[in-house]
């Protein structure tokens, strides 16, 4: 029981990641693929932040009376990763806009038919 209590957080996060991953793989619509990618990444962020948590700790900003702080390092990493994520999202969406203009559709199976792309 203790084991479950200690780990349920990670398990749900894994489930979330896989939700995102599944959307990326199966989505036929490119926008949805990007959404899936974001869900996937966001879930990974939760994993990192979960690692950083210290029960009974406070946010890593020096406050009087607090002795136990959560680990600031994962926070820093995820700050970076979030920005990286939005950069990728922007590029992906820009590509989608162009694809729409070039092909008239953003459904993967439809433009696959139009070009014999490899």
């Amino acid at each position: 029981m203790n084991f479950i209590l200690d780990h349920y957080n990670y398990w749900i996060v894994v489930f979330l990641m896989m939700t995102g991953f599944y959307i990326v793989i199966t989505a036929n619509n490119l926008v949805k693929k990007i959404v899936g990618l974001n869900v996937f990444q966001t879930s990974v962020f939760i994993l990192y932040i979960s690692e950083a948590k210290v029960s009974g700790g406070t946010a890593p900003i020096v406050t009087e009376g607090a002795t136990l702080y959560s680990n600031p390092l994962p926070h820093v990493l995820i700050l970076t990763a979030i920005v990286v994520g939005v950069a990728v999202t922007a590029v992906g969406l820009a590509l989608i806009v162009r694809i729409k203009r070039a092909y008239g559709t953003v459904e993967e199976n439809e433009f696959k038919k139009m070009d014999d792309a490899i």
Partner: protein
Amino acid sequence: MSDFIDLVLLAMLALTGLRIIFLKDLFAVVMLFGIYSFLTALIFINLDAVDVAFTEAAVGAGISSVLMLGTLALTGREEKESSHSSILPLIVVFITGAALIYGTLDMEPFGNPDNPIHKHVAPRYIEDSPKEIGLPNMVTSVLASYRGFDTLGEVVVVFAALIAVLSLLGVPKEGQEKAPASGLKSHQVLRVVAKLIISPIILFALYVQFHGDFGPGGGFQAGVIAAAALILYALVFGLPNAVAVIGPRFLKFMAAAGVLLYASVGFFSMYKGGNFLDYNKLAADPVAGQHYGILIIELGVGITVFAVMLNIYYAFGNQVERSNIQ
């Protein structure tokens, strides 16, 4: 209590995620993603990661959703039925998930202060950074000083995204005649309110920018918020008006300048005899040097992020306007 909130939020996340899988209405999917991001931000707060929560709310729920909606305006909101089977993806996902679950079996208990993660590198940040850097916000200390190189990389990533979007979509031309459909002319209330709140938003952005050393916040959040203010302006008063205020060409320079500002701090410290980004060398007193360094690089970050986010929005907005005219 905290655990309970955590559990509830996670459950809501899971539901949102599942719903996204099955929804075909992309507009709803994007909105759900915004909700997902927002819930994540809540979880971050609950897990003591206030800076991250701030960023996630501004970037994930804010900018990302806006960009996705902009894309949807161009691509249509229905996902079509796909024909291919979903067994193989399921297997892949299942295996990946199983591997991860397997990995979690050996994980240290959630939130235990004795975990190795809290024992090795982090203690120095927590114990010494207030002395070495002189800032109460350890996240800012680590972000800007200990791992300043990462942050430089991150600014460059944002810059790279700008390059990508510009090369893909181009930017609106400055000084072009105003398109008839642009802006929300008929929404008088909106226009008044927008005028009212844009300046506080920018003020808030500046606060976040310069208060980041002490509380949550910093260059990223500030840049995004400032960009949001101008995005609001562009939405309400039309893209050409916004472009007239700050043109894409100028933004391009700003983005580059931000990166250069950041890097110049590094080169200056090299010139002073230290390593790249060694703020200790910037002033006679190392702590003061850290202060200067962090202040300037955060400014660089803020400038670049602001310029890039706004410019990306311009690029998308321009596409939407063009398609509206057609």
